[in-house]
């Protein structure tokens, strides 16, 4: 176990050609082939989306869930820089890297789904842009956040390239980009929930509420910590490193605190609106609601005690439970609990091609994470580690 002195980040090293990177490469190639067909012949040739369910997994999973799972960087930055918990600093770079990839691809993923993608710049163009549209706010904030994250992460590349003077100049202003990097996700993660509001009664009352921005914001923060638990365990296992238990234990306790606030807000809102009755209507929608909320409650049983939080397997499972809850909250609102008016006669289940594109996008994230952590100083240096 390391001392309380923090280890500086260092490249993990090792070969870039291994089973994991080759599998990612193949998945990315399959995605490219499907996208070629999509761009030549239209969305309908590869995707099962239709006029009853015009947003499929390319929107809900790639963009909404993808960006929520990329909130690790935001959640950790909030902790380290805003609540001044400097001891979590070693988690910043790995979390930020995952967020950087998650968000860049969530932003790029939109192009796959845009039916008239060559007009995309209209969203930012005065005269076209509609500031009353929730999607306008999301698009602007996500784009700005991706830029901010690349700036926040640029010291990693500057260190590698030896550009000390540029890095020094950047550091003077870094606090501002860090502040932006906390503000922008708060804005668009809440707005991703607000996107449901204009759909009115199309969305089941279990997920249609004026409190939806707060619900999406709180879960984004919690998911951020859940993903850090998950990724720390996976990175430790696959790079055969020790797990940073010293940090993950208190981090997971903070996560439980935010989670408790979330559950009070969530069920308080359901009770005030009298919407809980919907959860008792037999059917898939209600079942999915309960799985979502059981997943959010599970961490209290998995890692409720200090002893339990010392168990890496339990931390890992709690991370997965949080991610599952967050994924279902979004799937339920936008797909499973959607279609009250137009739903009759319309069904949607993603095609294999749609799934393979989503898988391909996640493969790019994994491949990018492996390449950058092996070649650039991101993860904390390990004593026993062999340099590249």
């Amino acid at each position, binding site marked *: 176990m390391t001392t309380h002195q923090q280890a500086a980040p260092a490249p993990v090293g090792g070969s870039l050609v291994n089973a994991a990177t080759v599998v990612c490469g193949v998945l990315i190639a399959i995605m490219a082939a499907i996208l070629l067909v999509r761009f030549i012949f*239209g*969305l*309908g040739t590869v995707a099962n989306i239709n006029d009853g369910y015009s*947003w499929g997994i390319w929107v809900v999973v790639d963009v909404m869930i993808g960006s929520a799972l990329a909130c690790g960087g935001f959640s950790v930055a909030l*902790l380290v820089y805003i609540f001044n918990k400097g001891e979590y600093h070693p988690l910043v770079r790995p979390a930020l890297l995952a967020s950087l990839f998650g968000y860049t691809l969530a932003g790029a993923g939109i192009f796959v789904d845009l039916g008239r993608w060559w007009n995309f710049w209209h969203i930012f163009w005065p005269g076209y842009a509609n500031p009353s549209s929730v*999607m306008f706010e999301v698009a602007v904030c996500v784009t700005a956040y991706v830029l901010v994250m690349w700036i926040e992460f640029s010291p990693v590349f500057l260190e590698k390239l030896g550009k000390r003077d540029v890095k020094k100049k950047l550091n003077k202003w870094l*606090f501002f980009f860090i502040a932006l990097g906390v503000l922008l996700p708060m804005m668009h993660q809440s707005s991703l929930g607000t996107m449901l509001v204009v759909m009115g009664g199309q969305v089941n009352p279990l997920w249609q509420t004026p409190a939806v921005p707060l619900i999406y914001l709180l879960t984004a923060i919690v998911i951020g910590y859940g993903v850090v638990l998950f990724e720390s365990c996976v990175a430790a296992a696959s790079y055969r490193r020790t797990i940073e238990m010293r940090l993950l234990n208190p981090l997971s306790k*903070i996560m439980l605190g935010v989670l408790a606030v979330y559950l009070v807000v969530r069920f308080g809102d359901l009770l005030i609106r009298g919407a809980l009755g919907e959860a008792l209507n037999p059917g898939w929608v209600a079942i999915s609601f309960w799985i979502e909320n059981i997943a959010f409650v599970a961490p209290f049983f998995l890692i409720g005690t200090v002893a339990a939080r010392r168990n890496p397997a339990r931390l890992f499972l709690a991370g997965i439970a949080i991610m599952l809850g967050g994924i279902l909250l979004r799937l339920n609102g936008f797909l499973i609990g959607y279609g009250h008016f137009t739903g009759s006669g319309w069904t949607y289940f993603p095609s294999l091609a749609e799934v393979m594109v989503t898988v391909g996008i996640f493969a790019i994230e994994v491949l990018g994470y492996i390449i950058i952590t092996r070649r650039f100083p991101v993860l904390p240096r390990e004593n026993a580690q062999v340099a590249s």
Partner: protein
Amino acid sequence: MDSRRLFLKGVVAGGAAITAAAVAPPSYARETHSRPAEALGLLYDATLCIGCKACVVACKEANNNPPEFSTEDRLWDTPLDTSGYTFNIIKMYRNGTMETKDAEVNGFAFMKTSCMHCADPSCVSACPVSAMTKDPVTGIVAYDPGACVGCRYCVVACPFGIPKYQYDSPTGKIGKCELCRHRYQDGHYSACAEVCPTGATLHGRSADLLLEAKRRIALKPGSVTRYPRGKIGGPDQSYEGPVGNYLQHVYGEKEYGGTQVLKLSAVTFAKVGMPDLPPKSSAAMSETIQHSLYGGLVMPVVVLGALSFIAKRNVHDEDDESGTGKDKGEK
């Protein structure tokens, strides 16, 4: 322990700020829009409709749309619903033996499906690039493919399921009724109303159409009255006919702040595919939340200032890789 409590307090305070904003300070509350004074629309009277579908054909021609097939022989245009290529369709309600027209039990009835031209349209509020717009004078909800990014937020937002996308094309557009606004300059009006043989679909100013609708539902069922055809205010093409067994509800008078297309029916609207909608539009709710949080960028700038101040205090040793564990003995 203290700082953890502080952290949770911060989360709660931030949440409270958003909730307070969402619950709407009056300055940013956006009221539901109502119909413009000169709004144009249609009145569809299901009791007059004979299901001839002349309006479906006329709509196809007026909008230069290709036929869509649902039968094996593919002989003629047989769309089952509106689509990216079909902007108007007559649907049929069937129950039991289907003996009586406009009876809910053992009867049948017709219902027109096309854009309602809402006073406060969800599609216009949703569209990030102003491709969906509402004319300030006529109130027609128009679509501009040159502006559209194809995100299909309008498709998922509309409570009537009206904007539809052309999924079979690499350059697919949204398709929806625009009340034949491209035909007005030639002295024409909505093709569906122009060809309707019974006046079941009537074109005119929404205000006039609402008066006509209210006149009809006030009449005694079975009595005789005059029904105009074509458009209100056009050449007289009216005829005498029996009064239907109307529900005392003009659909579109109040739904979502009102729609410019109004409907009369003898069969409960929910059963013929018209959703129950509150008088407050979802666009108003959505924009109230958005403008409360981001109006004038006040909240974001204030929060950014606070965050910058805090971050500046906390990042001072950011670039020292030597490690600066600010240990608070909090394990």
